[in-house]
Every structure is written in structure tokens, then in C-alpha cells.
């Protein structure tokens, strides 16, 4: 079997008496989209926070790109190639879309301690960033302040930044949240192409998108993974049906 890119084993996180992550083991293999679903309060966000490094796990191991990243900072994990988008898009609002992506490009180059050359005359930086914007379809909006972009466009912008980082894994936290039906459809099509770049760990509530995209699905309930399997296996799984899916499947 191929070595997983991201491997989480026996992860535990307590908040006081509440066990938000209860021995979670989950992995992400090259080329796949692994969807993480579960009802509200199941601990999906807590898990994402631990993978990214904003929260420190109490115990358990997070292996990414062949090393234990459990003690690294957010920025260090990002430099190893952990690209993420947020449930509520996280962008530098005063900067144009282009400058947001330029920030990611300079971060990838590890060149944020250059004090003299003006970025807006840095053709290499601009061209690379424009190429990323083109891939997500934001070329025409490059010079618009990020604060003025629509919800869907901000999502595209975040993905452009993750692309600029040449991420080895994409961690997408509810990318469909707040998107209209048309937006969801086009984003689903886009994510289907994104998997060629790097495997995706997709936290999502939109079941149409999950069933359309996922190679495997893990179901998280009360901090535990109650099932992992292919779309068909999860659809048929009786515990999943009672715990979560209801009649949707």
C-alpha cells in the first residue's frame, strides 16, 4: 500500500471534562479526496485545528510528509506543505486578490526578510501569483481589494494561496458553506480537478458534494470516528444511518 501523506493516530483532545477528540485515527493517501463528515459538535473543527497546529493535542501522533509534526507551529506546518482554507474565508482584506496571493508566493520562497525591492515591481512575484489566480478563475478580479470579493471568490482566493504554497495536502474546512447551489456545483467541479495537485481532506456538510467527490468518507460522532469507507460502504452502514445520515442516503 502507498504511504499516506497525512496520518493521524489515536489523537486525543480534552476540554475540561469534554473529550472533543477521542482516539481519532485517520489517514489521507496520495491522490484521494477523503471527506470528513459528522453532525455539529462532533469535533470536526477541533480536529482540523490540531492538524493545522492552532490547537495542541493531548496525546496521539500527527505524521505529515514523513515526519511527526505534532509539536510544530502553524507556520512551520504550512511551510511543510499543509495548505488550508477556512470555514469563514481568511484573507488580508485591504490587499487586492493579487497581493494576497503574492504573500503566499513570497512565503513559499521563504523571502519575507527582504527589505528593499518593492513588491509591486517584482515581476517574478506578480507573474507567479497571476498564474495561480488564473487557475482558480480570478484573473479579472486580481486588482480588487479582497474585502470586496464575493463569498465564492474569497474561497477561490484561498485556494489560489494554497496552490501558490505548492501544498502537499489541502485541508478544506467546509468550502461549500454559504455558497449558493450554482456556486456549490462549480466549486465541486473545481475541487475534482484540484485532487490532481494534492490529496484533499474535505470537511463538509453538503452531502451532494461529498458523495460526488469523496473516494473515502470518515464519519465523526462525539469525537470518534464511527466508520471509514467508500461512499457505498458509508451509505449502507447502519450505524452511520442512525447516527447521522438519516433518510438523506
Amino acid at each position, binding site marked *: 500500500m502507498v504511504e499516506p501523506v497525512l496520518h493521524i493516530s489515536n489523537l486525543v483532545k480534552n476540554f475540561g471534562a469534554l473529550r472533543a477528540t477521542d482516539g481519532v485515527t485517520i489517514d489521507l493517501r496520495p491522490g484521494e479526496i477523503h471527506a470528513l463528515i459528522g453532525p455539529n459538535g462532533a469535533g470536526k473543527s477541533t480536529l482540523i485545528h490540531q492538524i493545522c497546529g492552532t490547537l495542541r493535542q493531548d496525546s496521539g501522533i500527527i505524521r505529515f510528509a514523513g515526519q511527526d509534526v505534532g509539536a510544530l*507551529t502553524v507556520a512551520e506546518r504550512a511551510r511543510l506543505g499543509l495548505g488550508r482554507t477556512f470555514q469563514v474565508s481568511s484573507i*488580508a482584506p485591504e490587499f*487586492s486578490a493579487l497581493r494576497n496571493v503574492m*504573500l503566499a508566493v513570497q512565503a513559499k520562497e521563504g523571502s*519575507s526578510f527582504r527589505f528593499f525591492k518593492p513588491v509591486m515591481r517584482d515581476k517574478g512575484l506578480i507573474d507567479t501569483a497571476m498564474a495561480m489566480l488564473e487557475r482558480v478563475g480570478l484573473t479579472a478580479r486580481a486588482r480588487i481589494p479582497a474585502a470586496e470579493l464575493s463569498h465564492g471568490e474569497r474561497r477561490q482566493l484561498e485556494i489560489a494561496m494554497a496552490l501558490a504554497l505548492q501544498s502537499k495536502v489541502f485541508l478544506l474546512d467546509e468550502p461549500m458553506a454559504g455558497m449558493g447551489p450554482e456556486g456549490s456545483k462549480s466549486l465541486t467541479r473545481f475541487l475534482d480537478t484540484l485532487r490532481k495537485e494534492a490529496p484533499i481532506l474535505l470537511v463538509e456538510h453538503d452531502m451532494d458534494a461529498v458523495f460526488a467527490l469523496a473516494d473515502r468518507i470518515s464519519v465523526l460522532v462525539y469525537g470518534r470516528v464511527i466508520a471509514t469507507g467508500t461512499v457505498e460502504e458509508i451509505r449502507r452502514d447502519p450505524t452511520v444511518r442512525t447516527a447521522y445520515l438519516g433518510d438523506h442516503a
Partner: protein
Amino acid sequence: MLLTRENLVNLILALGLLAVPLAANALGQPFYITLATRVAILALAATGLNLALGVGGLVSFGHAAFFGIGGYAAGILAAHNFSGDPLFFGFSGTNQMWIIWIVAVAMAGLVGLVIGAISLRTSGVYFIMITLAFAQMVYYFAVSWPAYGGEDGLSILVRNQFPGVMTMVPLNYFLICYVILLLGIALFAVIRASRFGAALQAARQNEVRVATVGIQPYRIRLTAFVISAALTGLAGALFADLNRFVSPSMLSWHMSGELIVLIILGGTGRLFGPLAGAALYVAFEYALGGLTERWQFFLGLILLLVVLFARGGLLGVLAGKARHG
């Protein structure tokens, strides 16, 4: 360079500051030259703070520490040079400005590194309070250190020297300060436009985003804080030489507050905001200070109006909203 509205305003401000002392000199009114020199020095100090506060969003309420340390660097070096007492290892100070400036920049930068390294672990109100606390520590240290005048301060009997310039001539000293101010503003502009500046501005707008692309906001901010402290320290050295006097008042929290007020009046984060603010402040101080001792009441009123109705300060009113590429 494009002749945008902002560049035009900047040019007028820069030339205006130069015109006042030239005219005053021609009319034989040296007092106005001193006033203009004060504007230039305060603008330089605020330009330093503007890098941390305006560009980086780091509301330091302790920049008086760096201003005062620069001032004391000038005062102490000059005092030893005058008395001949060795400062250390037989080095008995200097009266050469350029050496004093280097020492002031280095000392302020070093203290900035220490204060910043600790303070930047906090944010928001805590950052404001901890920078204030550090500055007050430096203040009380100066007050209680009798060797250099303690509470009474330290006089510089003869203004320090610069090769080939008669520094005691008011216009000459203004020109020295003016050139340094322009260099300081240029440095600010270059840094702000650089990759480092981009990361610093992004860290102000969205710290999480910066970390998510793999840049440690802390390191970026600490570097900015040190540069900011060093620039303000340089201004402090110039200020001591202007007054030929340095005292703990340069280190007090009033001074820190004054620098913040200058920036808000002029336009936070704007290239020429500190100069506009300093000019406005000194003009008020002079015009209203002549009428009433309570001129700061009116200054407060104006500050209130700016904060409520003209958030961009004077630059915002004259040149419109700030633009990012």
C-alpha cells in the same frame, strides 16, 4: 514617480517644512527655525512609531523609552566628552554627531529588541499596557540615576559637531534634521513596499492568514519593532541636541502619547502622516499655547473630531483614502 494627489500633498508638506525656516532665516526670526526643527524631529520619531503602529498595527505606548534612550545617548556621550571622564575602557565620549547617532540607533534598537521580544507575546490592550510598563521602568531608572542628572536632567553645554557644518547656526542644524527626516521617510517607504512590508501589513490585517501561508508573524513584528525603535531613538538624539538638554520627560508616557497623537492627527500608516501631524501639533502648541495655558484641551477637542469624523487624519482629508496596490 507618479504625480498622484497623495504625492502632491507629500511634496507640498516637504517643501513647506523647508520653506518656513528659509523664510525665517531671511527675515531674521530664528525662533521659527527652532520650531521647524522641532517639527522635523518629532516627525522622524513618529515615522519610526508609524512603522510599528501604522504599518504593523502594533500600538506601542512605550516609544518614549526609545526617544529618551536616544536623547540620553547624546547627552551622556557629550557629557563625558566635555568632562573627560572615561565612560568605559578609557573611552571618554564624543561630540561627533554621527557617532552619537550610531550609538543612539544601536541602543534604542537593542532595548527595542528586549522590550519587543517580551511584549509581542501579547496583543491588543495587553500589548499597549506592557509597552507602557517597560517605558515607565526606563523612566524611573533615569529619574533615580543621579550620575546623569536624575530628575533634573542633563545639559549639553555645546551642541555636538558634524564635520564641515557649524551646528550652532540654527538653519544648519535644521537642515541636518531635515535631511535625516527625509531619509527616514524614504526608509519607511522602501520597507513598506518590500516583501517584509507586505508580510508586516498582512500580519496587521489577518495574523492567522499570515501563519497559514507559513510566515511567523512574531518574527516579522519583532524585526519591525526594532527598526521602529531605532528610528525613534535617532530622533531622540537629534532632539537632545536641539534643546541641548535631556531629561526624564523625554521618557515619560506623555511623550509616548504625543507620538501616537501625531500619527493619528496626520494619518495612521501614511508616509507623510507623521510630518503632517507634527506640523499641526507644533502649530497648535505655538498658536494656542500663546493664548491659553490650556491649549491641550483644544488639541483634545481636535483629536476627538479627527477620530470621529476624519479617521484618515490630515492626509486622509487632503489626499483621500490610502491605497494598496
